[in-house]
């Protein structure tokens, strides 16, 4: 969960809490105590105190203001990485802090504030949507050098102490001590696991080691975890500075974001079909692909590999008169684009319905209702066009299905689509399987390729 310090933050939190509760119910797991809203920070150790005193002037609060109201629309933190003198200093923050500006540059502007309460204007010079990083350039100030932080070029060892810095919830700049706990294995992008507190508004702040070198950038927390926070590894910061420091200034970022999202979905597609280029990062080896799995007596297509999460549940609590076994799988590969819009995810749902004690007409009448079991629903988003759908009968290897295909286009990014396909078995009165595939944020060619492969595997 990305730490968004915005108006919607509370709404988002409630949503995530609800999701967490739902997941707990779904898996019959031990109920997880609801996380408190404000995680209390442990008292700083002596090094933390010294580090904070030494480096606090390198910290920045990044505010994205709505032009028309001149009030903040989103908040985050950042840090200086390079001072180019007359050209102004470069600073790093999260992409999600400045996403609204990147997508609608004429509606927003960036203002940065230092610990000394001085504020200045800044412009966006580079974005890395996949790793959630943005490079800003502060408007040059007369004869005043910006103190920078050094970016570390090696990965810390597991157990090494790190200190996250930032300005959470506008409560003032602070330091939060924690431990680096290795890379997260189940995501397509490298994320460092940090067992320390990161709160809303600290997004984009640095996580530094004992020597004040940046090891990672605060990016997100797991809302239903305790002190499970994530950092973007520092080498992506180095890469972004190299790429963006001397880039020509621009105001239009949608095409660049679209390009990165397109590259992302191309990589996922390649991984799915085992065609990915040699790993470029440590978890680049992470596997993803279709595989066949049993759902009771039926063979169903699911996602396989280390990037995939599957959940199963049954209707055992609700009704003993028929059976509905559900399997949901998704590829943990989605990228935050803007509030309410993400891209590059794949989800597969299967429901197996068994007649058991129902009469045949009752079981058939459930056909139209049973979409709830596949999780087949679409919410309307202003970032997507209206959906357009069509239906056909299709014969899989063994059974005949009614296949509904729906398509929506990303309105602000060319060439990206959401394709949802659901297949309802129509040739059996005693059991039927309902299958759904959702491809969010894919090019048409890739969506077509993946869905074709999926249909070819349909039993």
């Amino acid at each position: 969960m990305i730490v968004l310090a915005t108006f919607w933050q509370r709404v988002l939190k409630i949503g995530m809490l609800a999701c967490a509760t739902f997941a707990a119910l779904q898996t019959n797991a031990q109920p997880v105590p609801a996380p408190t809203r404000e995680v209390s920070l442990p008292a700083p150790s002596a090094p933390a105190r010294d580090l904070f005193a030494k480096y606090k002037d390198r910290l920045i609060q990044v505010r994205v203001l709505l032009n028309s109201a001149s009030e903040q629309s989103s908040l985050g933190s950042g840090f200086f990485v390079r001072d180019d003198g007359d050209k102004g200093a470069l600073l790093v923050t999260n992409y999600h802090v400045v996403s609204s500006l990147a997508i609608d540059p004429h509606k927003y502007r960036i203002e940065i504030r230092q610990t000394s309460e001085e504020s200045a204007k800044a412009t966006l010079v580079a974005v890395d949507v996949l790793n959630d990083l943005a490079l800003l350039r502060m408007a040059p100030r007369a004869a005043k050098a910006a103190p920078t932080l050094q970016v570390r070029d090696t990965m810390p060892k597991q157990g090494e102490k790190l200190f996250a810095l930032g300005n959470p919830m506008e409560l003032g700049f602070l330091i939060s001590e924690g431990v680096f706990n290795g890379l997260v294995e189940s995501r397509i992008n490298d994320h460092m696991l940090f067992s320390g507190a990161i709160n809303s508004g600290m997004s984009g702040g640095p996580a530094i080691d004992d020597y004040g070198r940046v090891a990672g950038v605060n990016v997100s927390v797991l809302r239903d975890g305790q002190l499970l926070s994530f950092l973007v590894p520092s080498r992506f910061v180095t890469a972004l500075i190299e790429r963006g420091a001397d880039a020509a200034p621009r105001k239009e970022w949608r095409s660049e974001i679209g390009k990165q999202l397109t590259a992302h979905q191309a990589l996922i597609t390649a991984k799915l079909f085992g065609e990915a280029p040699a790993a470029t990062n440590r978890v680049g080896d992470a596997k993803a692909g279709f595989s066949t799995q049993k759902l009771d007596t039926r063979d169903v297509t699911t996602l396989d590999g280390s990037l995939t999460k599957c959940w199963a549940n049954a209707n055992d609590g609700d009704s003993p008169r028929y059976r509905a076994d559900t399997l949901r799988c998704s590829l943990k590969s989605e990228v935050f684009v803007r509030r309410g819009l993400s891209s590059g995810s794949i989800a597969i749902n299967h429901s197996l319905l068994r007649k058991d004690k129902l009469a045949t007409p009752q079981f058939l009448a459930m056909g139209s209702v049973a979409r709830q079991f596949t999780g087949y629903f679409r919410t309307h988003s202003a970032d997507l066009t209206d959906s357009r759908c069509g239906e056909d009968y299709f014969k899989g290897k063994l059974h005949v299905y009614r296949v509904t295909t729906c398509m929506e286009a990303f309105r602000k990014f060319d060439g990206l689509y959401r394709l949802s396909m659901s297949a309802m078995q129509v040739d059996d009165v005693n059991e039927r399987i309902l299958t759904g595939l959702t491809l969010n944020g894919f090019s048409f060619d890739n969506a077509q390729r993946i869905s074709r492969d999926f249909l070819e595997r349909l039993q």
Partner: protein
Amino acid sequence: MTWSIEVLHRDGAALQRILIADPADNEPRTVRIGRALDNDLIVDDAHCAAHHAEIVISGDAATLSAVATVNGIIAPNGKAVRALALDNDKPFKLGHTSIRVRCDRWPLAPELPLQTRPVWPLALLLLGLVFAHESWDIWLKDVGSQRPEYLYTLAGVSAGLGAWSSVYTLFGRLVSGTQRFFHHLAIACTGFLSGIVLLYLLDVLAFASSWLWPIQIHQPVVVVVGAATVRAHLRLADPRHWPGLRYAVALVAALAIVVPIAQQWMSHSRWSPIESTGILKHPALRLAPPVSIDDIAKRQLELKNRTDALKAKQEDGDGDVYYPDNPG
């Protein structure tokens, strides 16, 4: 030969009648009509003149002509005229007053037989069918551990149909003085059942053929069936005004069909919100053959082109527009 001139109530009953026996001398007789007290037939109508019209009866012919009136005579066909030859007993109007002239030489309409067969057994049979369908419908959904509310649903349906029929019954009693609850109940149940049957057949057709249009026309079909039901109710309750009311009913029905379609087009650039059926019938009813994977690929391409067109149409437009930076 005897003539009678009658002032009619709007439900057709004669309020006032003057009889004119055959004049022995065959002299033409003149009957004057108006508000003034020196008329032969005095009408209390502000839209009539003091001496509005007169009827000249000569032998077996009668002629009506306007005297000193601005409104003239409104002939049975609704047109304003200055003179009218009277050769039948259709009422004409002076101002708002309906007047009928009858002659004992003119043919009388035959006696209408009383309705001898009672309607209530048919009405109750139809209501029973409605109950049967509703029970079946709830039973189909009775798949969970909690029983659905059969009795509430049946009570609700009977209350709805009863209230609907009562409204028309009351209306009929007010305008034409007849009370026909079971007729109206039979009409309401017939309308309900025919709607159910039509929609079911459309669903089966959609499932069998893989066509979408049988589902998409559900709403217009419901409107047409509803309009036909209302037509039957109104013809029974208020037969004299049906010729005029039919246009109102047709207009309302047409609007009920056109408005949602037009709004759907304005809001979502399509004619129907329904793009998938989601219905499932018995496998034996499916006639359409499965399509190939290439056909589905073609379908996807078609959907892509449609969303692209939609995107071009719904473009938010701020991508290339230059807004000067806020100086603040």
